[in-house]
């Protein structure tokens, strides 16, 4: 199944199910992004989506035996954190005026 998922042969088939679950969670979190109702709701949903993609990248790195993907995942996590912080300060600053 995992070969079908990523198009490459691997020797760690046990990681396919977690990856599928993460994709399902990604879809659910996206529902919250669309539905809102407030901006902070959308921001936490986006933050969770970013961590889900980080998880997917990490598992992909494990499956392909590529440490570089883990580096990419860490950088993505950093960017997601900074984005959330920026959104928080934006929301707060807008209420101060």
């Amino acid at each position, binding site marked *: 199944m995992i070969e079908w998922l990523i198009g490459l042969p691997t020797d760690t088939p046990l990681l396919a199910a977690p990856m599928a679950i993460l994709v399902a969670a990604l879809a659910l979190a996206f529902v919250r992004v669309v539905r809102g109702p407030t901006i902070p709701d959308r921001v936490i949903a986006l933050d969770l989506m970013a961590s889900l993609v980080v998880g997917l990248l990490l598992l992909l790195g*494990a499956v392909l035996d590529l440490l570089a993907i883990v580096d990419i995942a860490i950088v993505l996590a950093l960017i997601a954190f900074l984005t959330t912080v920026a959104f928080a300060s934006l929301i707060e600053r807008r209420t101060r005026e």
Partner: protein
Amino acid sequence: MSEIVSGLLALAGALLMLIAAIGLLRMPDFYTRMQAAAKAGTLGILLIVAATGITLGSVSALLHALLASLFFLLTTPVAAHLLGRAAYLSGIRPWVLHDDLAGRYHPSTHELSGEPSAAPPEPDVSQ
């Protein structure tokens, strides 16, 4: 052996992140949603990091995993904390039995006092 361990860790982590996403959909208000996302999301990603470290197995992979776990342990709660404060200030009322924060922010400077201000506190919003 290590393959099975890492598979189970990854499965548990992915299920926790799925629970975080379901919690995001099912919880009644913003703050409870954030609790679900912050807790289940953090432990979920930590388990996945551990699974990746074990699968790759090399020293540098394990060090990467350690670094990434420390990073997640520190940043996820900080992001939740900042977002919670911003949401409260932007006027999203929590669905709570009792709110100690009510009326304690200075309306324009956003300074937060530790004690109830001179004005009488708002009555409990029991629901």
